[in-house]
Structure formats: C-alpha cells, structure tokens
C-alpha cells in the first residue's frame, strides 16, 4: 500500500498536537494554585508546552508555515 509520508507526518502531528495540548492544559489547570518558585517555573513551562503543541498542530493542518507553492 502506497503511503504518502508527508500526509502521515501531518496526521501524527495533528493528532499528537491535540493530545499534548489537552494534556498539558489539564496539568496546568490542576496545578494552578500551587506555590513556590519551582512550581511557578513548571506552570510557565507547561503553558509554553501547550503553546508549542498548538503551533505544531497548526503547522500540521497547514495554517502555519510557508509551504512551497505547488508549481
């Protein structure tokens, strides 16, 4: 069976992006009230991780990223 590799990559990126974004957002929400500098840094990192997952997701669906124009 012929698999178009870029389509596979994009699918994994989209699915994985959704999963990671949801998971990290939930983790962030659960830990929101914790105190202390290390917890603060973790919250920041989780937020950025969520952002990154969203970015990767958008790249997977083609919204972000300058894809080469078809000839």
């Amino acid at each position, binding site marked *: 069976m012929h698999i178009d590799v870029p389509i596979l990559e994009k699918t994994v990126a989209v699915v*994985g992006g959704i999963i990671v974004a949801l998971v*990290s957002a939930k983790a962030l929400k659960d830990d929101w009230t914790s105190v202390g500098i290390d917890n603060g840094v973790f919250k920041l990192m989780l937020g*950025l991780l969520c952002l990154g997952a969203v970015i990767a997701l958008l*790249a997977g669906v083609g919204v972000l*990223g*300058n894809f080469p124009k078809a000839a």
Partner: protein
Amino acid sequence: MAVASMSHGAIAEHEGADQLYVETRALRLQGFLLFLVSDCVLFSSFIFAYLYMRNSGQGWPPPGISRLDVSLGALNSVVLFGSGATMHYALENWKHNNFGRYAFFMLATILLGSAFLSGQAVEYTHLIFVEHVTWAGSGIFGASFFTLTGMHGFHVTCGVIYLTILFLQSVHGVYTKDKYFGLTAGTLYWHFVDVIWVVLFSIFYLI
C-alpha cells in the same frame, strides 16, 4: 581554639537535617534555574545571529535551497512535546509514590526523546545527502540551521543521558517521596529543552 566533639541529640539532629535539606534544596533550585537562564541567553544569542543574518536582504531561503519540510518538523515537534507531557506525569507520579507509573512515564520520556533525536537524524541525513545542504557549504542557511538545531540536539542528547542516569538512581533508591530534587531538576531541564524547540521550530520551519 579547639575543635571539639561531634554534634548532639538524635531528635534535634533529625529536625535539623530536614531544615537543612529544605535550605540546601532552595540553593540548588535557584542555582539550577540560573543555569537554565544562562543557557537561554546562549540560545538567544545564536537566535539573534540567525535572525540578523536572515534579515540581511537576500530573501529566504537563499537561492538554491528549498524550504524545510514542515510536516517532518511538526511530527518531530509533537514527539518532543509529548515527551514533555510524559515527563510531567513521571514527576507527578513520583510525588504520589506510584513507582510503577513513574517508571512507565520516565521510560516513555526517554524513548520519545530518543525518537526526536532519530527524527533529527533523518532530517539531517535528508538535508546533507539529498538536498546537499551542509553546515559549512551552504552559506548562512546551513550555518544557522545546523548550529542552532545541533546545539539543541546536543542539549537533548545530554538530557536523555541525564534522565537515564536519574532513572537508574531512582531505581537504586537515591530519591525518596520527599527528597527528589534530582528529579525536579531533570524535569526542569527537559521542559527547558522543549521550550527552546518551540522557538526553533517556529523560526526555522514556520516563518
């Protein structure tokens, strides 16, 4: 002045030891965070260099070089971000004393981290041998891409090794439910490496 006997009672010793742990943990945490800040400055300097060179008016990518493969980059990114999520859960489970789940998530993190490195290897191989884009021979495109992603890949490699060592240490009982600063440091480092990749992915693959 004479240096006399060793110290006092068992109870005082125990309380003193806990207090001492809390205090030295604060030192180590702050020191580790500052190390991450300086590492951030290192990456920022090279990112500045890349953006400066890219802005030098030649158009991007430079003539003769095609754009990077966004889908592969996105896949690789998701793998790395996934490892960040698993790392978070590894630490959470450690804090709740679930060694089995901790081990699962820790090993998953190490696996995903290694998968990211393999993905980078695929990307590099494609660039070097198929597209003939090399570190030294492709002008500022090759220079900036391979230097920055190479530095990042080096950090991920060190991270994978570090997490493996931490895992082995945790198996050997170095860390307890209450004293696990090494694992905290490892998690911070791993998240840091993730966040750097968010920036690198955006500036190399997306813009």
